[in-house]
């Protein structure tokens, strides 16, 4: 039996598969369909201090191999989360990571402090990268100093793993990864959605109420993979790979590119059991390839191009 455990800071994940924030609700919505305990971990929808209605419809658009969303961080707020959702999550035999979004530095601290008083949260993922909100959001994520500042402010508030979730909407993601690492982050999540848009040519109107939104799904996989590769080359802390992972094969690519764990997002909408299937697939792959531990795959990319395969049929 291959060992599928990976570690993120002080956290042990039974397998490298987490569900991405905003794509698995608060876990309980799918309890009839998925055994959450089979996942390496669950990351909650972004929690804000106050409940948020989210943006006006239309909030989602299907694109070629992807989806655009402008949900606008609709969520029940951290207090309702603690009361209504955490009891269920606590019962699961898996790691629970709370994702936090805020429009000010103080608000990030306040949400984290409220959660810190509760049992059942194993770590925090800080969303500095949502493209769909007016205040905070991307402004934080596209400024290295801001990322460092947020990390420094949150660091003393918890001993649990602090994961900074980066936006891909920057030129050199390595700089942002390094900022988070230097300021004391335990890991980085890489990546949030890419800014995109779609237009209805009959009405000449944007298909999303917010004009632009975040692109996710298979369409972003090669882009995300490159960001993960770049970021993981730049830091010594774990990188959690995200972006268009639909199958176990996709997940292995991210591990090879340097990710220590991966998150499954949009795939959950098509199949809520996608995460469990991907975890099973990674395990079978290790078994079949005589890989004793999944950690052997992390960053095992052989970046030297081998032309022998091509030339063998030429």
């Amino acid at each position, binding site marked *: 039996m291959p060992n599928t455990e990976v570690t993120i800071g002080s956290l042990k994940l039974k397998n490298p598969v987490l569900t991405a924030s905003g794509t698995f*609700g608060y876990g309980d919505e799918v309890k009839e*369909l998925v055994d959450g305990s089979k996942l390496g971990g669950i990351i909650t929808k972004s929690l804000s201090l106050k409940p948020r209605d989210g943006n006006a419809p239309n909030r*989602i658009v299907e694109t070629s191999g992807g989806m655009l*969303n402008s949900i606008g961080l609709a969520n029940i707020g951290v207090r309702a989360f603690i009361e209504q959702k955490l009891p269920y999550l606590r019962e699961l035999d898996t790691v629970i990571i709370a994702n936090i979004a805020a429009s000010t530095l103080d608000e990030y601290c306040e949400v984290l402090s409220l959660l810190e008083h509760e049992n059942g949260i194993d770590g925090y993922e800080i969303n500095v990268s949502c493209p769909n909100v007016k205040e905070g959001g991307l402004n934080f994520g596209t400024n290295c100093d801001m990322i460092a500042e947020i990390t420094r402010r949150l660091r003393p508030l918890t001993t649990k793993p602090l994961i900074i979730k980066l936006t891909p909407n920057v030129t050199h993601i390595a700089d942002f990864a390094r900022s988070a690492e230097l300021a004391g982050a335990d890991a980085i999540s890489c990546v949030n959605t890419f800014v995109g848009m779609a237009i209805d040519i009959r009405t000449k109107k944007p298909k999303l109420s917010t004009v632009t939104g975040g692109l996710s*799904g298979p369409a972003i996989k090669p882009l995300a993979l490159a960001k993960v590769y770049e970021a993981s080359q730049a830091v010594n802390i774990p990188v959690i790979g995200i972006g268009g992972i639909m199958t176990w094969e996709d997940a292995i690519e991210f591990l090879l590119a340097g990710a220590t764990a991966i998150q499954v997002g949009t795939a959950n909408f098509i199949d809520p059991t996608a995460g469990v299937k991907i975890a099973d697939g990674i395990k079978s792959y290790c078994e079949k390839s005589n890989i004793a531990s999944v950690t052997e795959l992390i960053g095992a990319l052989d970046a030297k191009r081998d032309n022998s395969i091509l030339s063998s049929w030429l």
Partner: protein
Amino acid sequence: MMLHTICPVTSVEHVGPNIIVIGFRSPEIAASANAGQFLNIKVNETFQPLFRRPFSVYHVEEETVKIIFQVFGLGTQSLVAKQLGESVDVLGPLGHGFRVDDNFETALLVGGGLGVAPLPLLTRQLSGKKNIATFLGARTKEQIVPSFLENIQTATDDASLGFKGTVVSLLDNYLKVHQVRKPKIFACGPNVMLNALGELAQRRNIPCEVSLETTMACGIGICQGCPVERVQQEKKYSLCCKEGPVFDVQTIIFPNAQH
């Protein structure tokens, strides 16, 4: 109970121009689906199209569930190409259907175009228990699908069948002429029709439930992608997939319409 099942296709019928009824075997869904609930169907094994496609439960026969749809784009094209014995991947039954346990005596069923979809199952649930009058509207007579319904009147834009005009005018005229005991309206169709129906219902003080359509990714309440704006509720939006797709028409704000 929501299920995730792979169901063999048992029938593919062309019932109108580009209008298809597909049946597939799912004893569990057949036994548990309520009128107004829907299924979220993965139309093929690839990620093109990416999203599942939502369809109302049209009818249930023993262990078979049927949906009715018009061929639009990639999703419905994939479905119509299904051969008998091939499978579809179904999540369902999803959402809240129509409320049939309240105190009404006459059900006024209103379907605009393929908004007829949830009415056969509703008819089955109400038949013998309530008076039923059904009003179907479409552009032309070929688009009227009257199967499994009771006491039908029709309206077409081109007067090719029944009343010339909208189904809402047809119902309005009907209510002018007929004394209806304790009515309740159940409807599905385009937003403009439902909006007009909501006004009629308010004017005549008749309770009215409508089944709404929004773009959906998950269909099960995890993406937050399907908001329906509500009037004077605790929350500004409800999720169409989870808290709907059936809503009391007086509690919702249609896009681009003011109450």
